[in-house]
């Protein structure tokens, strides 16, 4: 029988399921035994079932293109990714540590700026950041929870070690896909869940709700929580609706909310107005309040920042968080952890060259062919240069961009991302993956058991974003037998 894995050829670099000798890795041994009972055609059949389930559940995301916006079905690969529970515990601790330090940093930046005075982080990085919001100065938040929800991107390098690639502190998305992937997997491959001990992750919405209630600034016993969406045309609308539904709270649009003369926020109901205590907003800072920020925003709620500053409403994530989600600041996070927590970082950063530093810039310009260059302030994998895969023309274009605006670019060595077996047209092949776990910080910290694994479906590609042809996988945190 041609099984899913017996013709699998491990690529260069670290494969998370099979070692170079063809033996399963410790975490993946049970998965491999399970897959070995299936023929390749059976696996392909299961993949079809998974796709049919996704279509039936209507799990979709929106791609923006010149030809208009297309609602696409969520790309999912049947073969899961496995991580050992013990290793995951270490990673989780590192993630909590990191978010705790970043939150202390944000509060410090908008208050005493001790870290700038101590010379740990250069002031100009903060002052030149377009996400620094002077309007937030003087605010102190319950539990220091500014970035209450964080989606940190992790990668494994050639030796299998986890690194933090970036911290997404603004409005990170993807958690609903993580949960849906698991739901699809359970319906398509139920036997695996009987045979292997896989940690559940579906408590996320309740953890989220309890975190949101914990940041209510007033002492209301039953805080009214809402999810604020820009609306149906947003690429993550599916997720906004999903989370509101799972938490059992209202999904509101800007027009549903109004700020009163009493500086409180209300929603418009069929029987009048009702007070709102906590807003989980899925709209960028710049658009949430036309009075405070972008006056042209039609998505926002005039007066919202006033209500927040008056301490009448909690906003997750708080306005101004973006100041800590910046690819330049990223380079300073290990120092930030040491400064506020007096601890060594548990999770390493990828070495990062800041083009604003002269010596770094010279190095970057001389080694563009080997480096990944990123704009400091973009997300979604747009505007990236992957040196080893770029044409001479693209390299020259980036050389000019960096020279014109060095503050706007950072560079990192091209990591050899780990691979996971993935079902492709010709059979099962190794494909590069990253991982986005979700971390909550309110009255307590919480990390999802696993996260959203994104996979670059094109052979050799390192770009995993779903808007650019990436796929996704279920992520299993597995307990070892006997453990």
């Amino acid at each position, binding site marked *: 029988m041609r099984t899913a894995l017996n013709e699998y050829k491990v690529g260069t670099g670290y494969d998370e399921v099979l070692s170079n000798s063809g033996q399963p890795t410790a975490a993946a041994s049970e998965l491999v035994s399970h897959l070995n009972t299936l023929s390749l055609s059976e696996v392909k059949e299961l993949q079809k079932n998974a796709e049919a389930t996704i279509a039936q559940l*209507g799990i979709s995301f929106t791609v923006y293109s010149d030809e208009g916006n297309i609602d696409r079905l969520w790309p999912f690969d049947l073969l899961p990714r496995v991580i050992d529970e013990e290793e995951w515990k270490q990673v989780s601790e590192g993630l909590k540590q990191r978010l705790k330090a970043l939150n202390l940093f944000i509060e410090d930046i908008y208050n005493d700026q001790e870290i700038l005075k101590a010379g740990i982080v250069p002031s100009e990085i903060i002052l030149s950041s377009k996400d620094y919001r002077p309007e937030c100065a003087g605010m102190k938040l319950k539990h220091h929870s500014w970035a209450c929800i964080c989606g940190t991107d992790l990668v494994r390098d050639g030796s299998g070690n986890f690194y933090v690639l970036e911290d997404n502190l603004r409005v990170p998305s993807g958690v609903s896909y993580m949960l849906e992937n698991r739901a699809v997997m359970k319906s398509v491959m139920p036997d695996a869940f009987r045979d292997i001990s896989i940690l559940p992750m579906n408590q996320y919405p309740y953890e989220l709700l309890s975190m949101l209630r914990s940041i209510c600034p007033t002492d209301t016993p039953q805080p009214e929580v809402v999810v604020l969406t820009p609306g149906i045309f947003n690429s993550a609308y599916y997720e906004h609706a999903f989370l*509101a539904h799972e938490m059992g709270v209202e999904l509101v649009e800007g027009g549903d909310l*109004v700020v009163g003369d009493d500086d409180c926020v209300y929603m418009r*109901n*069929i*029987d009048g107005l009702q007070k709102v205590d906590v807003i989980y907003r899925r709209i960028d800072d710049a658009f949430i309040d036309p009075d405070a920020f972008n006056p042209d925003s039609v998505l926002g709620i005039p007066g919202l920042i006033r209500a927040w500053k008056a301490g009448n409403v909690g906003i997750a994530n708080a306005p101004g968080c973006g100041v800590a989600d910046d690819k330049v600041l990223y380079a300073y996070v290990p120092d930030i952890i040491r400064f506020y927590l007096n601890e060594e970082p548990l999770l390493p950063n990828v070495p990062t060259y800041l083009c604003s530093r002269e010596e770094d810039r010279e190095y970057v310009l001389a080694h563009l062919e080997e480096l990944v260059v990123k704009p400091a302030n973009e997300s979604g994998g747009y505007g990236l240069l992957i040196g080893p895969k770029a044409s001479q023309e693209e390299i020259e274009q980036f050389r000019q961009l960096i020279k014109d605006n060095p503050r706007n670019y950072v560079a990192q060595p091209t990591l050899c991302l780990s691979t996971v077996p993935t079902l492709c047209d010709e059979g099962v092949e190794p494909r590069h993956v990253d991982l986005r776990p979700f971390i909550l910080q309110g009255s307590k910290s919480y990390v999802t058991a696993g996260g959203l694994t994104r996979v670059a479906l094109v052979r050799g590609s390192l770009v995993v974003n779903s808007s650019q042809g990436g796929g996704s996988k279920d992520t299993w945190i597995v307990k070892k037998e006997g453990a």
Partner: protein
Amino acid sequence: MLLSRVAERLYWLARYIERVENTARLSKIHSQLMFDLPKSVKLNWYTLVEITSNEDYFDEHYDARTEKNCMWMLLGDRNNSASLISSLWWARENIRTTRDSLPREAWVYINEIYLYVKDNLDDLQVRSRRNALLEKVIRACQAISGMLMGTMSDNAAFRFLMMGQLIERADMTSRILDVGGYFAAQEYNPEEVEQYGSILWANILKSIGIYFMYRQAVQIEINGNSVIEFLVYDDKQFRSIKYCADKMHELANILPNSREVLKVIRQLQDLIDQTPEMEAGSTSLHDYLDALQLEISAIHNACYRTWFYPEVEAVSGMQSVQ
């Protein structure tokens, strides 16, 4: 507690599902009639366009009044906002944006039938397959209505769904009666009208699935007048205009701030309570149905002013909540 915006979408969602089901039923029944009735009876495919008030759109976008054109405009034409596929799409969009107020199955069900119809639109062009497709649509709509009935709570969200369903149903019942009237009004060849009248009215009852209920309630042979009486005045038949109006009144009574809506519903009830005797096929029937439709649309407008887009006096409203 319910957001005004969500209430509006739930109301429309129920209207669209009811409309999809009724459009499918109307198309099916019309095909049956076309095959049962003699060629000399002046009933054609264009009648469907007229019943659904789509004459302007049809005349602008189509040439020949053929079966193919009329059916396509009514069922498969995405540019026609009143077509079955468009209504289905709108129902789906409304569920998509109110998912947090509905059982999760609502989305799965609507998505399934929408994708099915979208992928099988060609079947609408072939008579034999068209009926099978319409049958499937009708069943899916009933599954959705039944599922909502069986899994929701009697809360404000549910009441707005009911409101939408009742208003659309009352409107459609009046339109379906108009079809019968249209046929009965054929002036030439009265013998044939006489002869085929019972086929027509039986088919109309079957089209909305209540032939059996009629049979139980009305003992005499099927004729236009008794069917009209059953569908307008019967107080136990779910599809009668009277029943819909009474039910709407009940609902509005337990919804907040409903004084104006209740007043408008009362006007519809008054019009029904006059129970004028009308001959099937008379102009007075047609005018009466028109008057009912106007009252129904007045209720729709009152719902908007009361719940969906009330003029909120922001500050004073807030004081009252505080």
